């Protein structure tokens, strides 16, 4: 028997709750009718198993990419020296180990690991790509080395820190104590920005008397960079302002005020504007401040050793240039310090120059001669009586006039010409002159300097003040520096307190006292600065039992304000010379409510 089997394939299928197996039908040809067997059903109760999927890194992580289009991609060109620095000992920069024992190196490492200065992005740089631009740069020392820049001398580590502070900032106040090389740090930073193409047009604004100082320092610290000094008649200045291929222009404040419209007319704008002695713009309503702020610019740096001279408003004035609106007068000193912190860098000599020669302060209390004392007594009594007669009509100007008159008598008796201070000064200068050393003598009055020069001619005394031409002043400094016969340089606070490098002088005399201790510090720091070869002795003359002693007491209290803001400490009780203070010098009640006196700066 043959039989064809029409076979139907059994199908096993899973359902949710049962296993169904269909029956197999075998259909023989001879017997077509056999009943189909029933399907077998086995109910089960098995849920569908859950499947856990374990990811095996089957997706690539997201990547954020940043490309830097900076001129950093260009090979650093060899410097093009436009001027030969007078110091022929200029050397390539090499980071040298500091003096003294080498700090603990890594175990097994014999090589010295020098300090490396990182350029940190400022707090106001928000974009991550810009922050990365700074964070991913090599350290400053490497940038300088690979740029093959030459410096007249090896910068101090804190000066590298200053450059690293300035370079990334669009608004910055370098407020180092006088003598720490603010201009050198600014010039080196300018140089790096110019060399890297980040700045093509730079404007430096400084007091008139410091223009030659700046050109000299620029030639020393950035010899390959062309510099134009804005000076001369209007036609010449127009041409100088228009020079497109000169990266750095140096102008004095007066020229800037005068040429404000010209700058606008020429459509000038600057990649960087640097203000030296920026306390000049502390008064926001002054012409100088307005002219400075009107110049279009991308970066604004302020250099000042005294950002706070009288009151916290001074710093607000400077900030209107570097970061308008960032500070306001209603802030407490502590809040202002916190708000300003990322924009201000201040170092003091005692913190950064451990090996700097000491500054020896000597307050010389001078007893007036009997004639001088009598002249002084009469002037004070008459003056106070006059003020008392004026009563509520008395003005601050009246008080100033009396103070000035009394201070002048403390210097020289207006009738006899006697001067107890001069006697003391002469005695000191004899010794200084004999030992071949140099002394600086500061006074508030040019007239006093003239009288002193006559009396001190045997010491080769020279005069330096704002009434002299720039050429005459430069010549005076050159003579004092180079000629041994000149032991004494007589300077006015106004012209001589800023910008001069007189660190070869070992003695400073404050023949009379300025209104503001910050200005006195500036004067002292002409001698006590980097490069000082020995201790600097500072003698402050104070006529006993006179207005000078009373002013000194006020100034001592005033000295604390700057520290309060710059260190973010609590405010001290006294913040400056007020009308109250001035009237109190004569035990008089002020006519109006007390307010800080700007003129007292």
């Amino acid at each position, binding site marked *: 028997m043959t039989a064809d089997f029409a076979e139907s394939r059994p199908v096993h299928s899973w359902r949710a709750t049962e296993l169904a197996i269909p029956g197999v039908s075998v259909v023989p040809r001879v017997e077509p009718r056999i009943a189909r067997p029933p399907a077998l059903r086995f109910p089960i109760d098995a849920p569908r198993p859950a499947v856990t999927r*374990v990811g095996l890194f089957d997706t690539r992580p997201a*990547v954020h990419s940043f490309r830097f289009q900076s001129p950093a991609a260009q090979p650093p060109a060899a410097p093009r020296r436009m001027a030969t620095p007078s110091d022929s000992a200029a050397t390539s920069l090499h980071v040298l180990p500091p003096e003294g024992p080498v700090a603990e190196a890594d175990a097994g490492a014999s090589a010295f690991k020098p300090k490396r200065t990182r350029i940190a992005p400022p707090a106001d740089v928000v974009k991550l790509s810009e922050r990365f631009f700074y964070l991913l740069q090599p350290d400053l020392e490497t940038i300088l080395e690979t740029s093959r820049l030459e410096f007249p001398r090896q910068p101090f580590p804190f000066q590298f820190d200053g450059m690293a502070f300035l370079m990334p900032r669009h608004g910055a106040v370098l407020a180092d104590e006088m003598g720490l090389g603010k201009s050198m740090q600014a010039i080196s930073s300018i140089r790096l920005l110019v060399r890297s193409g980040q700045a093509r047009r730079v404007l430096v604004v400084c007091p008139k008397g410091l223009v030659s100082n700046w050109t000299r320092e620029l030639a020393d610290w950035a010899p390959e960079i062309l510099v134009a000094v804005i000076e001369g008649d209007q036609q010449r200045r127009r041409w100088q302002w228009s020079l497109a291929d000169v990266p750095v222009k140096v102008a004095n404040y007066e020229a800037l005020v005068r040429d404000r419209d010209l700058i606008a007319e020429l459509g000038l704008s600057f990649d960087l504007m640097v203000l030296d002695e920026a306390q000049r713009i502390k008064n926001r309503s002054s012409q100088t401040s307005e002219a400075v702020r009107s110049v279009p610019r991308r970066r604004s740096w302020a250099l000042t050793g005294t950002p706070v001279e009288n009151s916290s408003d001074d710093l607000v004035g400077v900030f209107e240039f570097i970061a308008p609106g960032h500070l306001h007068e209603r802030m407490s000193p502590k809040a202002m310090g916190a708000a300003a912190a990322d924009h201000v860098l201040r170092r003091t000599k005692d913190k950064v120059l451990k090996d700097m020669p000491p500054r020896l302060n000597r307050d010389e209390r001078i007893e007036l001669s009997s004639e001088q004392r009598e002249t002084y007594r009469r002037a004070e009594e008459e003056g106070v009586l006059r003020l008392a007669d004026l009563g509520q009509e008395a003005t601050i100007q009246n008080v100033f006039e009396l103070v000035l008159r009394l201070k002048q008598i403390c210097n020289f008796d207006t009738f006899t010409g006697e001067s107890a201070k001069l006697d003391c000064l002469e005695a000191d200068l004899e010794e200084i002159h004999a030992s071949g050393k140099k002394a600086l003598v500061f006074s508030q009055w040019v007239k006093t300097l003239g009288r002193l020069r006559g009396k001190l001619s045997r010491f080769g005394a020279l005069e330096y003040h704002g009434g002299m031409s720039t050429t005459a002043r430069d010549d005076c400094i050159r003579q004092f520096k180079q000629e041994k016969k000149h032991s004494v340089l007589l300077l006015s606070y106004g012209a001589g307190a800023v910008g001069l490098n007189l660190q070869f002088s070992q003695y400073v005399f404050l023949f009379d006292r300025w209104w503001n201790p910050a200005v006195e510090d500036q004067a002292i720091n002409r001698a006590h600065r980097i490069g000082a070869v020995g201790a600097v002795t500072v003698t402050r003359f104070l006529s006993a039992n006179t207005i000078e002693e009373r002013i000194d007491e006020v100034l001592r209290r005033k000295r604390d304000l700057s520290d309060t803001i710059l260190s973010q400490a609590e405010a001290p009780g006294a913040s400056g010379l007020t009308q109250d203070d001035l009237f109190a010098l004569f035990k008089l009640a002020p006519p109006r409510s007390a307010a800080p006196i700007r003129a007292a700066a």
Partner: protein
Amino acid sequence: MEQKSAETMSGAAAGPRAYGFLTAVESGPHGVFGGYLLVDPWGRPLEFHCTAPVKVSRAQQILFGSTLQSHLHGQQIGGTLLAEGTVTPEVVLTDLEPMLHVRSHTKLPVAFVRHASSGTPAAMFGSTIGTGSFMIGNASVSPHATDAARGDDLRARLEELAAAVDLCEPFERIRAAIDEAQRR
């Protein structure tokens, strides 16, 4: 990945000479961040690429076992980052031994670099490191086993850069940048 690296190599012949620095940073709560910095011969940045954090699960740890680090660093992070570069480096340096596994995903020479003062012999780092280690500046450079025979060539390629920067220093920059990215 390899193919893309090859494309990158052929497409970037013109630009300045470049050097790659590849590393990863473990950040407890986030995972592992990768960073790849390309610098010019003076150490200045040309490109920077960083990954989003890669978090490793317990299951991945178990399943990958001892191959986890090489896979994570070599392929997931390293391979991904190298593929993003638009300039071709002379050599890719890493300061993480597991990152050497990226060599399997690129045609670029890869070397392990560490301070000479670290004192750990190259042999301690396993089979990924070849025998052609050399000193350059303060750094000890150990090529991947694949590039072991190219020690002299790699040294020549690195000399210009090593004259400008400490070869271990750019990794500090990458870590600082990743740290910054996490804080933002």
